């Protein structure tokens, strides 16, 4: 079934860009309501302490203050998969930066002044900062009450009496025997520090408490329905009592996927008698209070035959969850079932532990654990190739998943999964893999090449669903309503393209509302996991088909012909054999009126939905099952030049191939690749939290925490898209949003090993770290 596509697959420009280049786009902090108050948050200076006493009196006395709250005022627990968190710390603080008290006042200055006057008496408690230490039997417990916390059962397995929030096991074959029998073995350990998402817009929420415990919220969030659902659970309110609006969102990257400042804004508004309250995270709080990406300690053992076939892989992943589980437990789960890379491996054992520590907590971040585990796996693959004397690309080629192979959770790899081998070959070709680099630009510089694979599937509940509604306007144009959020990815433009394609409308006559509103726009689970174009796209296709059914029925009745004979295209409906009797969409959209005044039909509103299919819970003991709606595969190849005097790495060329299944919008897809690669460079070269020995974050600002700037671009970037269609994907498409960031560190680490002969195992590959490695080698005889 081939059909010519008119709109899908073209670079339709984003209509939201017009609002954004003119300053008209309204983000949460641009909204203002009559009587709106401003909030400030007091955070903990200690990583672990008992709250002995909080004195709020002086704060209440500050002119303009309308509400002051501390944790003792609020006896509710929050959580996504594991309900372990408070709106404001109660009894104990578990990380430096944790909110302890908050003030709402007429002005932000007054709120901040009141916060300064709050007196908190702490009694410091033992703390634990390294998740490996936290696994020791005598480690201080971050959550002594873990046993009493509600959690998603059957999926997550917290271990009461320990700091383990979740332990994910993957067991396939007999890894111990296979490792023992392997011709060649390697073992290596790696580390990724925690990092921040750094959306340009920090977290911000406005809440207005209404009568009957109702509340209306405007928030910078990726997931309006999840905000509503979790608030409903923690406040004990019916869903309809909570209305969540999401205006334009200034970046998310996973950091705004769950519940953020909405609960605090809600309780402050209630305490202030229903005045609307705006809570905005300062940039320092964005680093130090709102969640980050978890750190990871990896230990990986690989066994292979002499001819380069991987026979066994054993990995232990110890995640630094920080003080609360949030998405971290699901990161530990997802990264485990992806935790051997995109390879066919018969014998595999993975233990992924998500471990509480007294640090700022982790959450989802673009790549959802995959950048971290593949930092280890893809570096280890190179070490194995070297030990075998094989070219790293050829070694990977021999072991990549191919049709008929099974993944480590027992999923059959089919033609509809895409082609990892083609991704590898495409990037290798792009950087002239196998040919030596050109001469370095100076005698003290050296060049090297590296390659790395990537893969990821959406990590989502087995029953994840979403819906789309399309309503036709008086002029025959279409309005698409969804509740996934376009916080920059470009999905709304893609959904408009899909609706235009399916309805036979020009793109200019398809609109998509930019304000999600749980009272008005239809359900979507969350905008995470690179699944919005896939699931939302399928829902829009179904909604368009529903519109066409309704148009067809009315047109058939109006024309006195059988519905089967009606064709809808180019904004008209007509009997296939009688194009001259066409009725325009405009004359059908609200119902058709006969010449005598009689009318039939009514406003056309189509409805479509999509639910994940065929997913299973993973077996708690073996991890076997089907976790993924689809997988996206890709690869990076990179050529670098290293300055051996300064330790600086320059990226000469990075080629990125992603098997997109179908490129729905080339401009947007290219934007995702370039943006993802540069964000990945941040994780590779620059970014990482630094803590002092008391667990205090030392670099919570742009002065001390650098992200890539326009000066840090590679000399050349080559995005490559493959189009091996995805079974079940809209037009064969699969998600590509997170993937370009994954494995950027691995490819560069491999290139660095090629250039210097040094295996770096810790990120970031800062000039300091690279130079220390060079100096250490020079001192070692």
């Amino acid at each position, binding site marked *: 079934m081939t059909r010519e596509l008119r709109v899908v697959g073209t670079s339709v420009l984003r209509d*939201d860009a017009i609002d954004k*280049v003119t300053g008209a786009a309204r983000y949460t902090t641009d909204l203002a309501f009559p009587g709106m108050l401003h909030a400030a948050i007091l955070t903990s200076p200690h990583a672990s302490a008992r709250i002995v006493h909080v004195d709020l009196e002086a704060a209440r006395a500050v002119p303009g203050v309308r509400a002051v709250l501390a944790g003792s005022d609020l006896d509710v627990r929050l959580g996504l998969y594991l309900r372990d968190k408070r709106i404001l710390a109660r009894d104990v603080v578990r990380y430096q930066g944790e909110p302890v008290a908050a003030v709402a006042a007429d002005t932000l200055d007054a709120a901040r002044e009141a916060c300064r006057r709050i007196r908190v008496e702490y009694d410091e408690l033992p703390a634990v900062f390294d998740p490996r230490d936290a696994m020791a039997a005598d480690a201080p417990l971050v959550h002594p009450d873990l046993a009493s916390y509600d959690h998603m059962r059957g999926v997550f397995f917290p271990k009461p009496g320990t700091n383990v929030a979740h332990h994910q096991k993957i067991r396939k074959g007999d890894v111990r025997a296979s490792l023992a029998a392997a011709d060649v073995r390697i073992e290596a350990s790696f580390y990724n520090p925690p990092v921040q998402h750094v959306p*340009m817009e920090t977290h911000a929420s406005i809440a207005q408490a209404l009568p009957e415990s109702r509340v209306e919220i405007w928030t910078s969030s990726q997931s309006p329905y999840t905000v509503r659902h979790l608030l409903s659970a923690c406040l004990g309110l019916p869903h309809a009592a909570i209305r969540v609006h999401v205006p334009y969102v200034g970046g998310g990257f996973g950091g705004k996927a769950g519940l953020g400042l909405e609960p605090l804004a809600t309780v402050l508004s209630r305490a202030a008698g229903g005045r609307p309250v705006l809570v905005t995270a300062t940039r320092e709080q964005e680093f130090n209070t709102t969640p980050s990406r978890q750190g990871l300690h990896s230990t990986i053992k690989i066994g292979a035959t002499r001819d380069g076939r991987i026979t066994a892989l054993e990995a232990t992943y110890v995640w630094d969850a920080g003080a609360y589980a949030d998405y971290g437990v699901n990161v530990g789960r997802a990264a485990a079932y992806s935790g051997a890379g995109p390879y066919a491996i018969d014998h595999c054992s993975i233990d992924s532990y998500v471990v509480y520590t007294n640090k700022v907590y982790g959450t989802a971040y673009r790549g959802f654990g995959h950048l971290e585990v593949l930092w280890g796996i893809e570096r280890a693959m190179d070490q194995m190739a070297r030990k075998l004397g094989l070219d790293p690309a050829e070694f990977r080629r021999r072991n990549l998943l191919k049709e008929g192979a099974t993944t480590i959770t027992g999923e059959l790899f089919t033609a509809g999964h895409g082609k990892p081998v083609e991704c590898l070959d495409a990037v290798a070709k792009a950087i002239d893999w196998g040919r030596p680099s050109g001469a370095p630009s100076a005698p003290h510089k050296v060049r090297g090449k590296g390659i790395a694979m990537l893969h990821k599937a959406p990590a989502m509940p087995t029953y994840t669903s979403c819906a789309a509604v399309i309503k036709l306007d008086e002029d025959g144009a279409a309005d698409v309503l969804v509740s996934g959020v376009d916080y920059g990815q470009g999905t709304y433009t893609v959904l408009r393209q899909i609706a235009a394609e399916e309805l036979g409308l020009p793109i200019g006559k398809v609109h998509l509302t930019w304000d999600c509103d749980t009272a008005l726009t239809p359900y979507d689970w969350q905008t995470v996991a690179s699944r919005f174009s896939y699931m939302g796209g399928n829902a829009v296709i179904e909604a368009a088909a529903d519109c066409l059914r309704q148009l067809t029925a009315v047109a058939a009745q109006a024309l006195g012909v059988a519905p089967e004979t009606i064709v809808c295209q180019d904004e008209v409906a007509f009997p296939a054999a009688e194009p001259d009797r066409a009725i325009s969409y405009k004359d059908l959209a609200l119902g058709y009126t006969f010449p005598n005044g009689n009318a039939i039909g009514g406003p056309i509103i189509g409805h479509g939905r999509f639910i994940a299919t065929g997913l299973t819970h993973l077996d708690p003991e073996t991890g076997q099952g089907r976790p993924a709606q689809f997988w996206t595969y890709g690869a990076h190849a990179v050529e670098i030049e290293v300055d051996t005097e300064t330790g600086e790495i320059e990226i000469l060329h990075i080629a990125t191939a992603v098997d997109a299944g179908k490129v729905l919008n080339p*401009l947007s897809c290219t934007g995702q690749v370039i943006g993802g690669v540069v964000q990945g460079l941040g994780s590779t070269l620059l970014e990482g939290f630094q803590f002092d020995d008391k667990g205090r974050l030392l670099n919570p600002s742009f002065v001390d925490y650098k992200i890539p700037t326009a000066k840090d671009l590679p000399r050349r970037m080559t995005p490559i898209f*493959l189009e091996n269609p995805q079974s079940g994907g809209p037009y064969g498409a699969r998600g590509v949003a997170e993937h370009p960031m994954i494995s950027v560190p691995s490819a560069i680490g491999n290139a660095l090993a090629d250039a210097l002969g040094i295996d770096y195992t810790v990120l970031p590959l800062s000039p300091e770290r690279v130079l220390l490695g060079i100096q250490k080698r020079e001192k070692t005889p």
Partner: protein
Amino acid sequence: MVNGHMETASVPSGLTLLEFLRDRLYLTGTKEGCGIGECGACTVLLDEKPVTACLVLAVEADGCTVETVEGEAADGQLSVLQRAFVETGAVQCGFCTPGMIMSARGLLRRDPNPSDNEIVEAMAGNLCRCTGYAAILEAVRLAAVAVAAQRAAGPLTGETVGSQPAAETLMGETGTERRRFLRGAESTRKDGRR
């Protein structure tokens, strides 16, 4: 003068220009990203020079001209610079965009024909987490080239805000310049429906 309008106000000495613009004049296009002059999201032109409005006191702007992103489009039409941002895919979440546009405007004001290095230098103080910068740098380059071509050929006609045909015209004229900051960008696309 703010965007060509005379504004008169009495303000507290500690009020920043950013607060004045956003809270007093409701010019919320200018964003706050960090509050300490490190991210560039609040860039505006003060007497034609780019400044971070969070580090300037409102009283310091007394008697000066201030230009914000809201003043960039004229007569309901996007400026060439704004159109270049739309067309190149230089806008994703959009939160850094107003500051980016003002930094670029400041550059093009003092040098209508900047070199690639000058573009990078001028934009390096503005952080963006979504786009990876390449498209933004392309947009500035494209705008410079298009304005030069426009000067040579007389004004463009028939544009409207957001008009895609107009956008395509701009792209068509300068299409060869598009990929300068994304050298080698290519799409190896296979027929998805073999």
